[in-house]
């Protein structure tokens, strides 16, 4: 991996945002709307009951949105190459897969941190969310969601590379499809058995169960969080393997050379 090549991939997205600041909107506006909406819902629920909905629900919304933004940051940076038909320009260069993925991940980190900053500002400043409630457990929470978001982003780019630009509509709903299983808003015990079985192999489940455990005064389930972190790292390794496999398939079949038309099948 060479730093200048990684920087080039990230720099391209910076140039795009600078040239068209409206691109900042999806990074900040939608998450801000989510926080405002859930902020008022939790404030209302707090008044009705004595339960700390701000820490539970608003915190969960914020962290789940963060995962989505990380994934979206990576896939959007990748889509810039798809939309500008830049595939051949990019892949017929000394750029390695590791350089390219690292550049996408850095782009995803920067764009998701922008969104996270906006969310934290609103959630803490306006609705009184305090991350101190989570204590040290916040670090593994963020780690698990961050690494899972990166993995989903890489898998998303692999799907689009393999099946063509039209498959973009398959990847945007992935976080929404996962959310019922990971228990963002409710304990996993609420779910039927078969859904709980799926939840157990989804790393973010351990984050949201951990949050509820802390807010409910049952302490930090460190073992569970360690297991979730391990799962997230496995996802990342798996996602990189999937991307490498798809890339090799693309080299064998000429997909990269021909990649410009709508080829989803």
């Amino acid at each position, binding site marked *: 991996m060479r730093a*200048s090549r990684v920087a080039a991939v990230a720099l391209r997205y910076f140039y795009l945002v600078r040239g068209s600041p409206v691109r900042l909107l999806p990074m900040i506006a939608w998450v801000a709307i989510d926080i405002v909406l859930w902020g008022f819902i939790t404030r209302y629920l707090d008044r009705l009951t004595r339960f700390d909905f701000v820490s539970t629900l608003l915190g969960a919304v914020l962290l789940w949105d963060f995962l989505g933004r990380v994934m979206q940051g990576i896939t959007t940076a990748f889509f810039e190459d798809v939309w500008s038909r830049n595939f*051949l320009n990019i892949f017929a260069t000394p750029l390695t897969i590791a350089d390219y993925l690292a550049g996408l991940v850095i782009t995803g980190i920067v764009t998701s941190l922008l969104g996270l900053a906006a969310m934290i500002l609103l959630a803490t400043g306006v609705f009184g969310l305090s991350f101190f409630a989570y204590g040290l457990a916040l670090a593994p929470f963020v780690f698990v969601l961050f690494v899972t978001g990166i993995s989903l982003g890489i898998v998303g780019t692999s799907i689009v590379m393999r099946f063509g630009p039209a498959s973009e509509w398959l990847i945007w709903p992935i976080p929404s499809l996962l959310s019922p299983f990971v228990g963002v808003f409710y304990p996993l015990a609420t779910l039927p058995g078969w859904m709980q079985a799926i939840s157990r192999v989804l790393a973010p489940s351990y984050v949201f169960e951990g949050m509820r455990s802390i807010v409910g005064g049952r302490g930090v389930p460190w073992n569970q969080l360690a297991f979730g972190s391990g799962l997230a790292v496995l996802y990342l390794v798996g996602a990189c393997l999937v991307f490498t496999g798809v890339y090799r398939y693309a080299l064998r079949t000429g997909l990269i050379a021909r990649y410009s038309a709508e080829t989803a099948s």
Partner: protein
Amino acid sequence: MPPSGDVVLSAEGLTKSFGGLKAVDDVSFQVAAGEIVGLVGPNGAGKTTIISMILGVLKPTAGRVLVGGIDIATRRSQALERTNFAAVYTPLPGNLTVEQNLRIFGLIYGVKDLAARIEQMLRDFDLVRHRKAKTGVLSSGEQTRAELAKAMLNRPKLLLLDEPTASIDPSTARDIRARIADFAAAEQAGVLWTSHNMYEVAEVCDRVLFLSRGRILLAGAPDTLIREHGAPNLEELFVEVAHEQLRPAEEAS
């Protein structure tokens, strides 16, 4: 006739099959430093497939590609650091300015003293006044110049050009041909050039490879080929060769 100077590109037994179809069938050739080689043939002859294999974006079914002696299959990055390309079907990202595009590709290719090199390319390709313009809003000729500036940015030892003058006016095309020839001579770069414009090929190329149905049918200097086959010019020879190759297929069908 094989090239006499240092070999910058060696294609050895290149073959590419898609299912039962052989798009490229056991093609071998070399390009020497400072040499411009024309790769010509009818649509579907396999030109772009060969270029894709040389660029490492398509894996050959058999055979290998060496750039400056480096096998692209095993040392891809090192081989491609010495290579660059411009193709009519691969424009630079239109939502970035000319200067931004050059900076990004300069970083990818690891160009030394990048700022100075970008200035030189902008001057050489008469793009100084367009440096802040988004590449997508430039005219066809200006976009082609920007693509060539990117293609020569890293002083490649091997330059691949897939129809670089397609869809531009004759005056600009002449200017671009001259710049490419100057670059090849000054940098001692080997150039592999595909084109359907036989006048252009005859003017610029030191050697021509006639390709049909994935195989090289004829190879040699343009003047020699014309003389040996008794054709009035390269275009007539092209038409003759293309028809000869099509006839058996038509008769069979």
